[in-house]
C-alpha cells in the first residue's frame, strides 16, 4: 500500500496545502500571534517543511530540532491549546482539499507524536 505521503499526493499536495493552511493560521487569533513578527516569505517556506513532515514525507527534522525550533515560542506561552489549534487547522485544510477522514487522522497523529518535543517537555 502507498505511504501516507504518496496517497496525499506528495510534494504537489504540500504546495497546494501551504497557502490554504498558512492563510488559516494567519486568520486565527488563537495562534497568529506566534507568526506575526516573522518574515512572511521565509515563513511560507517553513510551513512547507512543517507540512512535508506531518504528511509523512521526506525530512530530516529530529526531536531535538523540534525542541530548539519552538523553544522561543514556549517561552512566549506556547502550550497544548495551540498545538490543538494547529492540528485543527491542518484538518480543515486537508478537508478543503478533499482528503478523507482516515488520512486526516493519520496526519493528526503524526503531528501529535511530536507534541512533547514541540512543547519542550
Amino acid at each position: 500500500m502507498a505511504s501516507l505521503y504518496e496517497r496525499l499526493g506528495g510534494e504537489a499536495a504540500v504546495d497546494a496545502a501551504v497557502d490554504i493552511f498558512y492563510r488559516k493560521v494567519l486568520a486565527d487569533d488563537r495562534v497568529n500571534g506566534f507568526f506575526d513578527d516573522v518574515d512572511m516569505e521565509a515563513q511560507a517556506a517553513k510551513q512547507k517543511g512543517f507540512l512535508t513532515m506531518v504528511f509523512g514525507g521526506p525530512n530530516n527534522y529530529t526531536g531535538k530540532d523540534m525542541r530548539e525550533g519552538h523553544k522561543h515560542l514556549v517561552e512566549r506561552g506556547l502550550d497544548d491549546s495551540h498545538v490543538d489549534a494547529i492540528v485543527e487547522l491542518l484538518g480543515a485544510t486537508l478537508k478543503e482539499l478533499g482528503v478523507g477522514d482516515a488520512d486526516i487522522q493519520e496526519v493528526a497523529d503524526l503531528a501529535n507524536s511530536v507534541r512533547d518535543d514541540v512543547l519542550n517537555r
Partner: protein
Amino acid sequence: MTQLKYKDTVYTVPDGSSVLDTLLDNGEDIPNSCRAGACQTCLMQATHGKVPAAAQNGLKDTHKAKNFFLACSCVPQDDMEVCLPDVEKLKFAATVTEKNKLSDNVIELKLKTDEPLKYYAGQFVTLWRDDVLGRNYSLASLPHVDDELIFHIRLIENGQFTGWVADELKVGDRLHVQEPVGDCFYTQGNPEQSIQLIGTGTGLAPLFGILRDALQSGHTGEIHLFHGGLDASGLYLHDMLTHLAEHNSNFYYHPCVVHANEGMASNIIEADLLEIVSQTVSSPAGWKSYLCGDPEIVKKLRKQIFMAGSSMNDIYSDPFVYS
C-alpha cells in the same frame, strides 16, 4: 562565543551578535544601510568558517558560491574569517547626466555607466558616494529603451545620501553603481495575467519601470497602478500617469492621498490606500502583485493580498527598509 578575524585582527563575537555589529562596535568601517537583510549594502565574504544560511537569504547563487554573505544577518555559529569583497568587480563607474526636480522633495537622477549595465526595470542597485556611504535606489528606466539609468530619489530630512544628492551632486560628477539585484520586475510569458502595482512615495520608481516594461512588451491583461501620497504633491508623476491611462485601454491609474488639497485633480481619491486596493481588486487570486515603498505598508499589503486569495509566489515586494 565565537572568534571573528577581519584584517589580521581577531575579535570576540558576543553571543547573538552579528558580524556587522561586532565589527562596528570595534570601530571598523563596514558599509551598511538597512541592517535588516534587505539592501545588501553590508555584503562581505567569508574566507574561512561556515556561513549560516540566514546570512545568504536573497543573494544570487553566484555570490553564495563565493561565500558572500550579509554581515547584518550573520550571527556566526563557528569561528569565521571575513573580508570586504573585491568591490571593484561589482561596481560600475558612472557619470551624472541629468538631475531634475519631480516635486518639492523628489529628484530624478539620470546616470550613464561607462560600461552597459544588465538589469531589469524595477530591480535596485546600490549607489555609492564613496567607499563607505552606499544606499539602494530602484531602477525606473528600461534597459533597451533608455540610454541612462533613471532613479527617483526622495529627500529625507538629515539624510546622509539624499542630502548629498540634493546639495552637492551635479551634472558631470562621477559615482559608483553596484550591480542590480532583486526579483521585483516584469516577466515575459504571461501577457494576459492581471497585474497590480502598489506603492507609496518613491516606491513608484520601480513600479513605473515595471509598468513601462509591461506596456512595451505588449501586455494585454489589466494593469492597475495604485500610488499613495500624503497629499497631491506626493503624486509626482500624476500628469504623466493620467495621460498614459487615457492612451492605454488596459492600464488603470489610481492616485490616492491621505489629505485632500483644495483644487487637486479630480481623479485623485482621498482614502486609505489599503482600502482602495481591496475595493478595486477584491479577489487577487491569479493576479501578480508588486509592492514597493514604505516597509510597514508593504507588509500590510502583502498580508492583505495573500489573505484575499493570492498565492505567495505571485506577490513581489521591495520594502524600502532603513535603519
